[in-house]
């Protein structure tokens, strides 16, 4: 399974990002979330932007030390192997890998029950099966 964002249902509350940072980093901090979801006005037009991990595998491919692996259709980071080079952060097409002090943060789908999905009040985030 992977995450899917439906912009028409998003109200821009940021609860998804807050829950993500809370469960992964033990702090409420949207800039530490492994997804980015926002609604905003551009020229007074309401826009929505949602970036989530699509399981494209780019980070697995570019990691020079093979610290990120795709296991049972989920990304797993081996922190003890990670050399914190930041290549995955730069190469993630969705920009949802977080650069931390000693390592990086990737979306591991919360053991199959993602907190961002659980926290979304109006179903703008959901899980979809990968075929």
């Amino acid at each position, binding site marked *: 399974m992977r995450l899917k964002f439906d912009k028409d249902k998003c109200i*821009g509350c940021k609860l998804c990002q807050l*829950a993500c940072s809370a469960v992964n980093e033990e702090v409420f901090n949207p800039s530490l979330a492994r997804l980015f979801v926002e*609604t*905003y006005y551009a020229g007074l037009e309401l826009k929505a932007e949602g970036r989530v991990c699509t399981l494209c595998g780019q980070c697995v491919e570019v990691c020079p030390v093979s610290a990120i692996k795709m296991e049972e259709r989920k990304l797993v980071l081996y922190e003890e192997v990670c050399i914190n080079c930041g290549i995955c952060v730069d190469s993630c097409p969705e920009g949802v890998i977080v650069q931390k002090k000693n390592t990086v943060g990737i979306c591991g789908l919360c053991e199959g029950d993602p907190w961002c999905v659980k*926290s979304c009040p109006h179903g703008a985030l959901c899980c979809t099966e990968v075929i």
Partner: protein
Amino acid sequence: MMGYQNRVLRVDLTGKRYSEEPLRIEWAKKYLGGKGLGIKYLYEELRPGTHPLSSDNKLILMTGPLTGTTVPCSGKLAIISRSPATGTILDCSIGGHIGAEIKYAGYDAIIIEGAAESPSYLYIRDGELEFIAAGDLWGKGSHEAENELLRRHGRDSRVLSIGPAGENLLPMACINTEFFRQAGRGGIGAVMGSKKLKAVVVKGTGGVRTADINKALPAINELMRNSTLTDDNLWAYSDGTPLLVDMSQASGILPTRNFQDGTFEYAKNINSETMTGARYGKRGCHSCALGCGNITRIGKAMVEGPEYETLALCGSNCGIGDLEAIVKFNRLCDDFGLDTISTGNITAFAMEMTERGIKDFGIRFGDVEAYLEIPGKIAIREGIGAELALGTKALAERYGGFDFAMQVKGLEFPGYEPRGSWGMGLAYATSDRGACHMRAWPVAQEAYGEVDAFTIEGKAKMVAELQNYNSVKFSAIICDFWALDLKTLAEVLSLVTGENLCASDMDRIGDRVTGIARLFNNREGFNKEQDTLPGRIFKDALKTGSTAGKYIPEEQFEMMLAEYYRIRGWEEDGTISQRKIEELEI
């Protein structure tokens, strides 16, 4: 205590200096944050008699312990000052994301003092502050200013800004954020204008820590599912406040033609059903599970809104039954930085003055063309705008019509006719900032509910309890639209702060916050004398609908007021005794 950043940013605009200091935790324990803690700081720091538009007045941006967490509907920011419109205490509440951004930048509060020599704005980023010249933004609408500031500082910054109304020190000037969210009332925008402060831009990348986040996160999520996303609250998502148009019409409390009546023949043109037909999006504030914001577009006119207050005061109360015109008026007010409640009232007052032949302002009920020129004229004091910019009370003092100048202490009426909700009359008269629906809202029980609306029986107690409830809720900072009980409020505060709080603690804090607001007002010379309503409410009967024939007899009102003071433990003259101050531990 957890949940707080334990840090306050103090900004001196006069000397272009800033400093950081610890949050007064002993005050936070007694007042939580938001409304209560902001008022406590102002009460302790402001010299009595300080003119609201002098550089000695302060502007306090106050978050709460829940701000920036996943607690539903906790995203608002309180802004506290002495009101230019009333001279009373003024605490406003503004949505969007700026409250959380201030927390992420590392602060619980920003206290802004002094006045800049020339137009300026503040740029705050994670503990760094810049004073930036705003000569090029001065005179610009709030929307253009915000767009430009987001272009300069990044779309992920959050902006508080004023429009020309604030720059021109009008008593109905508001503060804007995210284009369509306002700290609307009491001329809070004029305080920024008097400080030559066009905007405050904030960007924060830090976080908020709570007592035991692994316990708090699932517990709060469960509360959101079981207590927030329920039928009691989801009207805010499905309809938003426009739902109240039909409810007010049915109960005869929809202000019509300057409160001459309580039903409007074109109500269905401006009700939620009509609004829903013109809706093309929904938006919520930070951490809001409900999302009350309706984005409405009719032809080329677009606004996030109009809210019920705007539909009522700028619609039925001006005899305007044309939603497109109200959307345009709303958009103009937002951009010029005008509070729609006060602007709608002033416009309606000018219409009635003209129709009665007391003073010709050249504008009549239902005259869309003249109506749409009003916001622009008021904001820059042009033509009749120069007079309307005085506000309803001062305008009546100049030209007459005081009995139908619909205001208390200089603040214009919200959209609920008190003759069809007698408790609401008491709530307007005793609210800490003049006529306000956010201090107590007995309308829900009286006009919309089962309680007899046309009696004073039990109303003093009801209003006092509702005021205490809102006082503590707006100090913890939970949005009005999550109708949580005090036990649940205590529960979320305990989860975040790690303190062991219960419902009776909440009630006590509510009583204390209401008390210190009253004490501030007493100190500025307010007492029983100003706790009253316009003559129209005591003398003129409503004409149509379910409130036809109703008015509040003045002696009944006086009895209700006296009972209210007794229940509160305040003195007969509306002041608070030293003994009571000690009892409340103010």
